[in-house]
């Protein structure tokens, strides 16, 4: 939000709350997604968008009509959509002769495009085509990335980060172990990316941890990477910045050694040995006159403090 947005004040409490909800925050909301259908979208692309919608459902918007726009040439319309629906992840689906069955995955920072990766669908099997029971809507998936390309190649590394951002769902503090039903597996082999979606079946193994069997649930994609638009290092670094208030504060005067033992450093004031209580003998007792003088001094001090 720029300063210009604040010129017009919200008139009602409700609109104020709405604006606050949209504004930048220390602890951010979960990112929501918009799925945009391009001007020319084949049946495959439309179905793929619908399936992604089913995977992402509670925090997702599907723009179902034709949108004559090309994100790689002109990003303004994507940015406009994102501002309108407050979404920072998007998928744009299109189909033409040069780039058949095209999906553009992207994310935005501050309503400006950060990363965009264009993926072509070589093979696609829809969610409907697997005749079995699916996992419930809004299940937080397990994400697995396999293949050394996800570590070595810069484009793939960014794509991995994008996919994690895209599919990870809401951040939670705890999860029901029996509810881990959905798994998304991304494999980078042979210059292609295979995305498979499995239903996790837990079998008895005799010990506490179950044995896992998988059943393909769909959708499944074979992607090839086409064009990419990655954020410059500066912008990426800026977007990764963490607020100071969120970062854990370093605790002073505490250290650990190699064995994990905790050490503390204590700062002590110098002890006044004159007031040290020694043996109580009559000879060391204060005389009444001395006592009075000492008390009087103490009282004047007190009075000064209270003023």
């Amino acid at each position: 939000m720029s300063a210009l947005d604040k010129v017009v004040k919200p008139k009602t409490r409700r609109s104020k709350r709405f604006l606050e909800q949209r504004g930048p925050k220390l602890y951010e909301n979960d990112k929501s997604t918009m799925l945009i259908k391009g001007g020319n979208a084949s049946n495959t692309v439309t179905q793929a968008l619908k399936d992604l919608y089913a995977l992402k459902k509670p925090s997702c918007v599907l723009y179902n009509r034709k949108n004559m726009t090309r994100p790689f040439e002109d990003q303004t319309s994507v940015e406009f959509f994102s501002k309108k629906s407050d979404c920072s992840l998007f998928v744009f689906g299109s189909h033409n002769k040069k780039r058949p069955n095209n999906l553009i995955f992207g994310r935005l920072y501050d309503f400006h495009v950060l990363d965009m990766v264009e993926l072509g669908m070589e093979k696609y099997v829809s969610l409907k085509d697997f005749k079995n029971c699916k996992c419930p809507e809004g299940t937080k998936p397990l994400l697995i990335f396999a293949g050394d390309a996800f570590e070595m190649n810069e484009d793939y590394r960014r794509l991995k980060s994008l996919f994690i951002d895209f599919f990870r769902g809401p951040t939670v503090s705890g999860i029901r172990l029996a509810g881990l039903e959905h798994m998304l597996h991304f494999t980078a082999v042979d210059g292609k990316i295979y995305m498979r979606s499995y239903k996790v079946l837990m079998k008895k193994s005799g010990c506490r941890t179950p044995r896992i069997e998988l059943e393909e649930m769909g959708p499944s994609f074979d992607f090839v990477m086409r064009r990419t638009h990655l954020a410059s290092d500066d912008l990426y670094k800026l977007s990764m910045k963490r607020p100071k208030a969120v970062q854990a504060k370093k605790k002073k005067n505490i250290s650990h050694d190699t064995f994990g033992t905790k050490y503390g450093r204590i700062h002590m004031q110098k002890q006044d040995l004159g007031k040290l209580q020694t043996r109580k003998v009559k000879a060391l007792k204060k005389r009444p006159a001395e006592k009075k003088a000492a008390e009087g001094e103490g009282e004047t001090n007190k009075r000064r403090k209270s003023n």
Partner: protein
Amino acid sequence: MAALMIEHVLAQAEKDEAEKLKLISVDKELELQFDLGNLLAIDPNPADVKAFRQQNREVFLRSLARDNTQLLINQLWTLPTQRVEEAVVATLPDPSTRLPREKPIPKPRAPTRWEEFAKLKGIKKKKKTNLVWDEVSKEWRRRWGYKRANDNTKDWLIEVPATADPNEDQFSKRVKAKKERVAKNELNRLRNLARADKGKIPGVGLTPTEQPSRDDLGKAMHVAKRSTASAGRFQDKLPKEKEPKNMGKKRKFQPLLGDFGAEKNKQLEILKVMDSKKPKLDVNKAVNRQMREEDAEASAKRKKPFKKGGRGKQGGKKGKGRGPVRGGKGQGGKRRK
């Protein structure tokens, strides 16, 4: 005989255990990286391209996925769990994968002109009680807002001051005054926004006043003079006309080559400030604080004898409206001299 039996049983048990573990253990060349907060695993092992090409593709992918999932599930099952309504819930650690933010980090609001001034002068905000005693209705009411105490918009009668024009409507005068205050406040708000944005702040210009002073008239004349297409460049001067004050300064630069001694001293001064650990003394601020403290002391002394006055008739009551404010204060934070 018995010893042999025991050995046999133990060996059998060990075998069973190994068998069980075999079901859930997977061997990998490189270990997987886990981010349990995101339920994420990364397998850095290169996929076996040969096997991938020869085998059925789906079978290969599924077996790879199964192994990886088993490893991830094994990790997840080591997390501490608790029981919530008949379900076993594992506590996830914070996500460790760093992902870009959605929106920039929120910036703190820039201080307004008043806040800056108050800080310079050492003026602190005072908390006022929410409820005040309403003389008319004889009850505690809100200080502000709906059904407020001492509401002057609800007056049905206003005394016409002796100096005022008897034909003037005192009610509409009040309303107008209020509207003007609101407008002024809004203007100041916008000016503060512009200042925070480092934008150009438009001057307030000339506000209409009932009886313009000599300065006001002078200012008005100069504004009128400068309001030509050439910004008053070709306007003649009146006899005995004075240049107005505070009309902006022209920048002055020091000569490129000049007083070396002065320049050296200037640099040394800067170095001295940078080197010292103590912050530089802001004389203005210190003096302001000192003056403020003296003022406060003097006013406290003056008020002491009248400790029982102040809030007047409400003084005797001990009620909900009585907050931390000492008795000596009337309404508002305005200082009376």
